[in-house]
């Protein structure tokens, strides 16, 4: 056996198991459902009807709009909270900020279902807030559950710590000496932010955003437990198609539509990752 061939073969052998797993459990099911989404449920012939249904039926259209609305709101609010929060965690040396940084990891260890029930317990119309209010003779019913508000609140619960983690990690990679030297030559705080911190961290913020976007488009548990009856997030609409109506072809079409919506953000992710800033090219 020549060692040359061995050297070339070993890397392929090593990636073979993971490649086979991806082909079997990711590529094959996706292809399978794409093919199925173009099939007529009864005759099996080629049709676009499964897709047309989702873009013409008023209920499904409002589901798609609702999902995009909830997801985009979640993404914007997450960024709004997480970015300043990360800057605080990075540049404050107080003991409080160390504590918060530690606490920020905690939600990662709480199972999603538990978190949803915990929040429901607090904000429902007879929940903790209402009960505390009753002690003071107030009947506080916020009506937060079973609509978009509760889904967004829950999404923020999950995503702010997550986005903060990514952005803070990026900010810690920023050398303190760079900022100090800028300060030495008289740069204002605003200048330091716009000229140094922002350009060096926006990429990671965008990456966090794409992750948040993708994980919320198809979310199921949160909208299932706290969402309303109509309109529905697409994850629930998909569940209805295959579980309640047993319309497998439409379910396949909807999954592909969700896949397409997600790929917009994966495109951004890949683009940002490949794009080099001007000063990095050399």
């Amino acid at each position: 056996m020549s060692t040359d061939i061995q050297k070339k073969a070993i890397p392929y052998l090593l990636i073979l198991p993971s490649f086979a797993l991806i082909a079997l459990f990711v590529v094959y099911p996706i292809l399978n459902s794409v093919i199925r989404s173009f099939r007529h449920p009864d005759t099996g012939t080629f049709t676009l009807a499964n897709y047309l249904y989702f873009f013409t039926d008023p209920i499904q259209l409002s589901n798609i709009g609702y999902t995009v609305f909830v997801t985009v709101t979640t993404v914007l609010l997450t960024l709004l909270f997480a970015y300043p929060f990360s800057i605080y965690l990075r540049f404050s040396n107080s003991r409080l900020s160390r504590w918060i940084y530690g606490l920020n990891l905690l939600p990662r260890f709480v199972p999603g279902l538990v978190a949803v029930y915990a929040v429901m317990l607090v904000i429902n119309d007879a929940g903790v807030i209402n009960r505390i209010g009753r002690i003071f003779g107030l009947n506080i019913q916020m009506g937060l559950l079973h609509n978009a508000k509760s889904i967004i609140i829950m999404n923020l619960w999950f995503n702010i710590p997550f986005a903060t983690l990514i952005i803070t990690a990026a900010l810690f990679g920023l050398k303190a000496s760079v900022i100090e030297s800028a300060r030495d030559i008289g740069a204002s705080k605003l200048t330091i932010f716009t000229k140094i911190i922002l350009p060096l961290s926006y990429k990671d913020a965008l990456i966090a955003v794409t992750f948040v976007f993708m994980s919320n488009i198809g979310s199921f548990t949160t909208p299932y437990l706290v969402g309303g009856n109509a309109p529905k997030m697409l994850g629930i609409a998909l569940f209805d198609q295959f579980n309640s109506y047993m319309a497998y072809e439409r379910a396949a079409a909807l999954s592909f539509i969700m896949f397409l919506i997600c790929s917009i953000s994966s495109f951004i992710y890949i683009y940002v990752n490949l794009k080099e800033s001007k000063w990095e090219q050399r």
Partner: protein
Amino acid sequence: MKNSVKILCVLLVVSALLMGCASNGAEDGKKTVTIWSYGSDNVKTTFEKLANAFNKSEHGKKYQMKVEFISSGSNAQSLLDRTIAAKKAGKKNTDYDLIEVSDAELAAYQSEGGDDFFQKLDTSKMPNAKNVKAKLSTGQDILMPYRGTTVVLAYDSAKVSNPPKTADELYQWIKDHKGKFAYNSPSTGGAGGSFVTTSVYNQLPEEALVSSDEKWSKEWTPGFKLLKALHPYFYQSGGKTVYPNKNQGTLDLLANQQIEMTPAWVDQVVNEINSGILPKSIKMVQMDPAFTGNLASLAIPKIGGNKDGAYAVMDFMISKEAQTILLDEMGAFPVIDSSDIKSDNTKMISKFDVSTFRTSSIGVLGQELLKKWDEEIATLK
């Protein structure tokens, strides 16, 4: 040369990882009987208890009962898919010795797997069969009911002293007590499903409830009118009527006193009163005409490899011993006379009679009903 040894090691590890290990044979020469069921976790633990009891019983000297369980969430549909696929692949002597089939599913099995998919039951092989009181609406010669449950009206007796007794009284009560009644969205749980089904089918001849004939779907309008008329009187949150998801959704509202009444499964209420999730003040009452119930049944597919063992397990499942376990563990209705079964749960269920269960079997119309509800009721402002 050393390198090729390394490669060999890598290959060995990889293949060991990929192969996994699956082999099981019967112990000590006993023939294994595999029983397939599905549902939530309490069903699973009950089945494991039943298997232990069976293996210790007289039958256990000849047969070893083994439980294969498909947890809900992984989609119970797959038991149907799996057995049909096995039959279509021409397999015989499979381990589908005994499977759980509801009367509503029977039609699907027969249309996909053929009318002769199941063994016709030979009651002479089951001495306990003569004690079974529960009556199925379809498939009497194929299915053996082994436990029942039904939807009833659960109410908080601390707030409601005089609960409605007929469906019309219930509809009137809902209108008189705005926001104090809720049912869960029907596609997410059978309790709300039963409320919707009965609200629609109470307006139709009784025969419609056991027919999958398309013509009945044209008669649904008065029922849906009723549901629409009641819509503003149901439980509200944030100024909007809300139909919580899942059977548990409305029971949670009942537990924290946001509502006073809800349709609920008897076994679920019994279990939750016992475990303290629901307060002791929750009581149950059946309507006239009743909410629909369900008889869970077992059937023997012809592709099963151990017919005699399957009969033995089936016979055991309708014995007093197994029925007591089912009542204790799950609050399930015994299918035999419950008066001589000793269980703490007997008192709670004694007023409901398993032989008068109202069952629905509307086949594919069930999916259409859910869809119509999603389109017309869920979207109401």
